[in-house]
């Protein structure tokens, strides 16, 4: 790649730990230099793919600071520019590539182990560079285009194979487009069939159409996953009325019986319900006696005579009373019934075994309590099943027995994964297990500082939109080597449609302008026209029911 056009600058100093500094070439304006931009340093033996992390104006002489040239004095300004006044750009090399190898496809970028020599020239990265590093969709199905680097048109691809090897996170302040990013990633997983998705859709945004936050265009609605992918996505709903009203084609109504709620499912609700630990003790006591019917028993007894129950169990009356009072709220949930006829989990597994993705809508049951409860209950069960399946597979070693990889998407992740909850909930367990049992998480959150550090460090790939809070930024960069440069990049992101991707699924951290979620996108995901879709549905029904 010795054909590069305009040079951007020259390396003047730096270190492996802190990054290298570049002096901006005369004739280049500092205002063209944006944090997060992708550049290439041509060293003697290597090319260093780097990111711009900071920009600084310098003068050689303090006198200039106290007596700068006036606006009319253009000659003095031009003379000083590039000599006594100059711009230093801080770069962070991310990958290096040995030079002189011919076929671009054979070149494998390595992690940075050294730095370029003095006076190495720096150039803007071009399309070939991006393709070389991030791969292209045409090369392999594992690559999925998620956007373009700043000021470039070349697509940046996520390596989906690597993406699903770990749990991942999508972070960003409220309103920065996390939902869009999540939809993007989920679309990729669905389209390239890399995993089965189970999405806890708290705000009913993913399954069917949702309103775009920024209105003003004629399309105020964006399509949901089911609308794009048709029968490959199934919508389960907790609130059938709401779904009906919104004309959502729900596939299944969710009912949960009391006997399906274990004590472990209540524990994550402690904070939400303000339950005292002793109350949990009391719950265990109830379960000890009534086993699976403990909830029903508690609620029934609670209606009539909690005291006697407390006595019979030998627990403190107050604790039990408090427990009852708090759990009584569950009665309000329409989807909670004393007993269900169907095994919901079995149903879910049927779908997933067929490769169908599931979006669980909450409709109007979108309280945090409901969300926490349902997410915990279902996830725990599903995980249990997966553990069994995995152990079976290990025994038979029959490829047909291999469980399909599952990605569970949860929002408000800090509620599930805060330091206290992460030790107690299934989500913490899943995150820590990595992919042992073929289950991983996709966490979406605006308060990453609320998430347990240990969990954060297990997260493989992070897609980070704009974050302001210093704690959030620090949290999200936990476990990242040399975060200093990335910090300033994060702070400079646009509030919409820009994100920093770093971690397992990308060879180097990269700032992207995310792919537009529009008609063009739908088409690329394989969305069929109305008529074609109906035909397809008919054919599918035929196939299902014979």
């Amino acid at each position, binding site marked *: 790649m010795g054909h590069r056009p305009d040079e951007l600058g020259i390396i003047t100093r730096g270190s492996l730990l802190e990054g290298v500094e570049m002096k901006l070439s005369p004739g280049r304006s500092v205002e063209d230099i944006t944090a997060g931009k992708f550049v290439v340093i041509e060293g003697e033996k290597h090319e260093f793919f780097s990111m711009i992390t900071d920009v600084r104006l310098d003068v050689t002489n303090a006198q200039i600071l106290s007596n700068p040239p006036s606006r009319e004095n253009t000659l*003095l300004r031009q003379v000083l520019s*590039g*000599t006594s006044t100059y711009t230093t750009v801080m770069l962070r090399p991310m990958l290096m590539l040995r030079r002189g190898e011919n076929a671009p496809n054979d070149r494998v970028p390595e992690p940075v182990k050294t730095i370029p020599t003095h006076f190495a020239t720096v150039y803007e990265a071009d399309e070939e560079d991006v393709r070389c590093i991030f791969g292209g969709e045409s090369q392999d199905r594992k690559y999925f285009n998620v956007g373009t680097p700043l000021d470039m048109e070349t697509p940046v691809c996520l390596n989906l194979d690597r993406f699903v090897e770990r749990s991942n996170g999508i972070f960003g302040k409220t309103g920065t487009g996390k939902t869009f990013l999540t939809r993007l990633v989920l679309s990729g997983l669905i389209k390239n069939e890399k995993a089965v998705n189970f999405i806890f859709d708290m705000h009913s945004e993913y399954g069917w159409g949702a309103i775009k936050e920024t209105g003003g265009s004629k399309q105020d609605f964006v399509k949901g996953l089911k609308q794009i992918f048709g029968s490959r996505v199934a919508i389960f709903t907790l609130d059938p009325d709401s779904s009906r009203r919104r004309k959502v084609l729900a596939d299944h109504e969710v009912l949960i019986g009391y006997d399906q709620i274990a004590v472990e499912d209540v524990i994550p609700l402690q904070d939400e319900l303000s339950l005292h630990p002793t109350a949990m003790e009391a719950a265990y006591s109830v379960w000890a006696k009534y086993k699976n019917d403990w909830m029903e028993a508690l609620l029934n007894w609670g209606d009539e005579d909690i005291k006697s129950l407390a006595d019979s169990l030998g627990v403190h009356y107050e604790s039990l009373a408090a427990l009852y009072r708090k759990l009584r709220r569950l009665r309000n949930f329409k989807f909670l019934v004393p007993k269900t006829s169907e095994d919901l989990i079995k149903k879910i597994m049927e779908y997933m075994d067929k490769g169908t993705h599931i979006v669980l809508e909450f409709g109007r049951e979108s309280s945090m309590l409901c969300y926490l409860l349902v997410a915990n209950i279902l996830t725990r069960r599903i995980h249990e099943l997966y553990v069994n399946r995995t152990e079976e597979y290990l025994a038979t070693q029959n490829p047909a027995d291999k469980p399909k990889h599952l990605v569970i998407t949860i929002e408000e992740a800090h509620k599930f994964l805060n330091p206290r909850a992460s030790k107690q909930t299934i989500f913490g367990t899943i995150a820590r297990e990595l992919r042992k049992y073929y289950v991983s998480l996709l966490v979406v959150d605006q308060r990453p500082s609320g998430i347990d550090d240990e969990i954060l460090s297990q997260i493989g790939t992070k897609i980070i939109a704009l974050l302001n809070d210093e704690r959030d930024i620090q949290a999200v960069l936990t476990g990242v080597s040399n975060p200093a440069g990335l910090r300033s990049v994060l702070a400079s992101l646009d509030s919409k449609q820009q994100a920093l991707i770093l971690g397992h699924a990308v060879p180097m951290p990269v700032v992207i302008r995310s792919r537009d979620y529009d008609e063009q996108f739908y088409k690329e995901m394989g969305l069929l026209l109305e008529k074609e879709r109906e035909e397809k549905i008919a054919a599918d029904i035929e196939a299902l029911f014979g």
Partner: protein
Amino acid sequence: MMKETHIAEVIESNTTEMIAQCTVLHCSPPFGSFVKVNLAEGTEPAIYGLVFNVVTSSIEPNRRAMAYGKTEEELRKEQPQIFELLKTEFQAHLVGYRDQTGIKQILPSQPPRIHSFVYACSLAEVREFTRQCDYLRTLFTISQVPPDELIIATIRNTLDAHGEDSPHYLVQVGKELSRLLRDDYDRLSSILRRISP
């Protein structure tokens, strides 16, 4: 090549400087202008000098000019001998030479011979010589005149030679000066202010 008329004759020379007497009284090449001398009669290698001091004085060391209170025209009519007893000389700093390989901005190995003829440099020659700004550095070593004044005058003269290119050339020279003057920003701005046309 057309034979040019010489404007002065070398009367003293050393490794870094030469002194030449002008053929016509009061007609010296201007302060800060470039002159050239051929190393030996008729040969191409030419030595370039930069005029930094112009002196008009009496030919005889013990006689000094005095005030008459008359205009020059009147004096030529009434005291014609005065003009025979005065001479104009200039001192030029040797800034480079041209040999077969081109222009070099370093001191020549031999100074100009006494009685060599000195010629003014044409605009084209000035433009070619001043493409490189290295010679500016040596101007700071001249002690007889304030170097800033000399630099300003020299650059103003060379701007004419660069014609349309002069704004761009001026910036280039300005940057060289900035390097030479190191941290002396005030001095740099003062010089640039006075150079600008």
